[in-house]
């Protein structure tokens, strides 16, 4: 599909980094404010989708983007699984908050609450990559493309 007019392209170029930054903020402060991994991941994916919609899919090499999105998604999921598994390896129960037992930070600050911010980060990467991959597969790839 072709892109949109020049005004739309300029404004979306200016807005997309701000939306990305908002998404990263929501992910990182997931243990202090509402939001967390899912909501932040959707925002991050939204910034990329905005750019593709504004500039048109003719300028996008969709196979490479899809492969990158799948790789990021697998990495994010695997980091989350490893954080859950770490508790099992360390001798306590599955999914224990292992960092809090070793080094509890100050409450209500950014570096606190053990493994929860790391889990939020992994989920944020995963949800962003997954939604971006869904968008590319549904809207841009055509029958016969090899993914």
């Amino acid at each position, binding site marked *: 599909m072709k892109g949109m007019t020049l005004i739309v392209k300029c404004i979306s170029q200016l807005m997309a980094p701000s939306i990305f930054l908002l998404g990263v903020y929501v992910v990182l402060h997931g243990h202090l404010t509402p939001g967390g991994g899912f909501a932040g991941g959707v925002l991050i994916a939204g910034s990329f989708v905005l750019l593709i919609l504004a500039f048109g899919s003719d300028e996008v090499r969709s196979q490479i983007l899809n492969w990158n999105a799948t790789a990021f998604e697998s990495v994010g999921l695997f980091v989350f699984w490893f954080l859950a598994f770490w508790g099992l390896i360390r001798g306590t129960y599955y999914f224990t908050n292992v960092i809090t037992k070793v080094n509890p930070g100050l409450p*209500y600050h950014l570096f606190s609450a053990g493994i929860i911010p790391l889990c939020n980060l992994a989920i944020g990467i995963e949800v962003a990559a997954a939604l971006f991959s869904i968008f590319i*597969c549904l809207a841009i790839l055509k029958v016969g493309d090899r993914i």
Partner: protein
Amino acid sequence: MIVFVMAIVLFLIGLYGVLVKRNVFKILIALSIIEYSVNLLFALIGYRRGGTVPILTEGTKAGTFFVDPIPQALVLTAIVIGLGTTALLAAVAVRLYEKYDTYDVRKIRKLRG
């Protein structure tokens, strides 16, 4: 009480859509309406009269009266599950058009008997 009844009415509207509508994408949207209405009902169940937002910040005193946070966590999970279901159904619907050349559910009936 009235909000529970209205959530059930939304559920019934979605159920009508799934049963009656012919277009594949209208069935998809009606199924989404059903899922959202159940999530809405679930989130409303956690309300306590006079409670505040269940978030601990610097100035929260001990013994503050919160609304129930468990339904909110469960609804977050259920929304993401609904997203996954909707995405998969949309993908199948798009490929269904390429094979049958129609969006009408009554004509997509190769399997019968």
